[in-house]
């Protein structure tokens, strides 16, 4: 995606992004560029080990790139981590990242607070997340007593909770049943309608819950249109 978007506001902009692991002569990816306009849903697919999760972690600020720049809503993590991370929601791959002894509702409240969401907005956002991701039935139940699918819905709800400009989803279909996929599709649709964007990483050949606006593939360290 190139200069044609220059006049359009970008939610995410990647420039010359490269990442290698120490001791490895083969880069995970190199010279990755991407321009993601507002209200866009992009799917990045790739085979296992292609570097999708690493790319997502670099975008989220969990890892620093060797070269290049990640801009989210025209700011970088280096320029200001608070502003940068306010605009990012992340649901990583797998089913970790939850506190077994805390309830689903406590998780949402925790996510809102460490997300530095203003007090007056917290309760409405939490209630909307409970409704949107159908968590009401088990909202007060401890996480270690939830099914894997219910936990995944909670993890997704936490990623969308604070209305970030960009939600990063790494293999989000993990453990979701058909109802869960529908819930996710509706959440992505609502997020896009509000002018926000979603970046979905998934394994090659996996059908996403909702058709993407952009479809790209990461292979041999290069990101290109699929």
């Amino acid at each position, binding site marked *: 995606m190139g200069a044609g978007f220059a006049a359009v506001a970008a939610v995410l902009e990647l420039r010359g992004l490269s990442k290698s692991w120490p001791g490895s002569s083969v880069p995970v990816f190199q010279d990755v560029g991407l321009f993601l306009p507002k209200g866009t849903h992009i799917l990045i697919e790739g085979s296992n080990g292609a570097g999708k999760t690493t790319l997502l972690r670099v975008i989220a600020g*969990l890892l620093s790139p060797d070269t290049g720049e990640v801009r989210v809503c025209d700011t970088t993590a280096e320029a200001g*981590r608070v502003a940068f991370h306010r605009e990012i929601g992340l649901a990583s791959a797998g089913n*970790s990242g939850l506190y077994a*002894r805390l309830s689903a509702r406590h998780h949402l409240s925790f996510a809102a607070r460490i997300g530095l969401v203003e007090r007056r907005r917290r309760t409405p956002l939490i209630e909307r997340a409970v409704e949107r991701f159908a968590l009401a039935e088990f909202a007060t139940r401890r996480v270690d007593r939830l099914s894997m699918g219910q936990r995944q819905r909670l993890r997704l709800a936490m990623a969308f909770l604070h209305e970030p400009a960009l939600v990063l989803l790494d293999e989000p279909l993990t453990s979701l049943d058909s109802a869960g996929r529908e819930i996710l599709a509706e959440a992505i649709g609502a997020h896009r309608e509000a002018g926000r964007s979603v970046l979905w990483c998934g394994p090659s050949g996996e059908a996403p819950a909702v058709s993407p606006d952009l479809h790209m593939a990461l292979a041999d360290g290069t990101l290109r249109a699929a």
Partner: protein
Amino acid sequence: MTSRLGLLDGVLAIVRRDAAIYFSYRFRALSQALIAVFSLTLFYFVSRLVGVRRFPNPEDYFAYVVVGLVILQALTATLALVPNNLRTELVAGTFERLVVSPLGPAAAVAAMTIFPVVAAFATGVVTLLIATTLFGLSLAGTSVLLAIPVAVLAILAFLPFALLVAALVLLSKQAGNIGNLVVVGLSLAGGVYFPPELMPSWIRWVTEVQPFTPALELLRHLLIGADTTDAPGVEIVRLAAFAVLMTPPAYWVLTAAVGLCRRRGTLIEY
């Protein structure tokens, strides 16, 4: 702009989370009280064997060691529990959420010290109550209340060391043992169980370079009326100096460790 109120909310969210997890284990507080009873019982009977020039009566040694045990709990909370909790976060994958939050990993780690310290403070109070009611410990009069702000100051003086050990955990992924090592070392050299002056002279410098010994001396002075090596004011200045002078560089080291892990790609590895 991030308001200070917002940051405070984020910090309190971590305290609230830690408290909720702690109290989700119903018998945790009770078991800690029982551990205090057993420790006190042990040292009560050990103290019956003590009759030396420094401690002419068994009660003198018992009082000496009880205050040592109370401070040791605070030290364990900051230097051993916090790094272990951080390691648990790394393994459970929950640290990732803190890293990508606007609150940020360094502030989150600093916030993770609060609840364990408050819990240690409460356990210390319970230990003193049990020691006075069941074992006849005699506390000094009104100066006992002054022990509260001094204990807070002592904890603030321990905090930079907790941040440094947390930085080591992030860098090495297994430095939790270093916290335990430091706690055991300080409990030996710092004067929990016996006066540091009993140690060989070549090791006594240890008492000068850490805040544990002045904290012990001050609290023994306030709680049981023991003498201090230097004037109490000097000991207070020493503690305050550790807190004020060491916390900013320790926080900087923690932030630098986070940055280094980001570059090496090891921030959420375990």
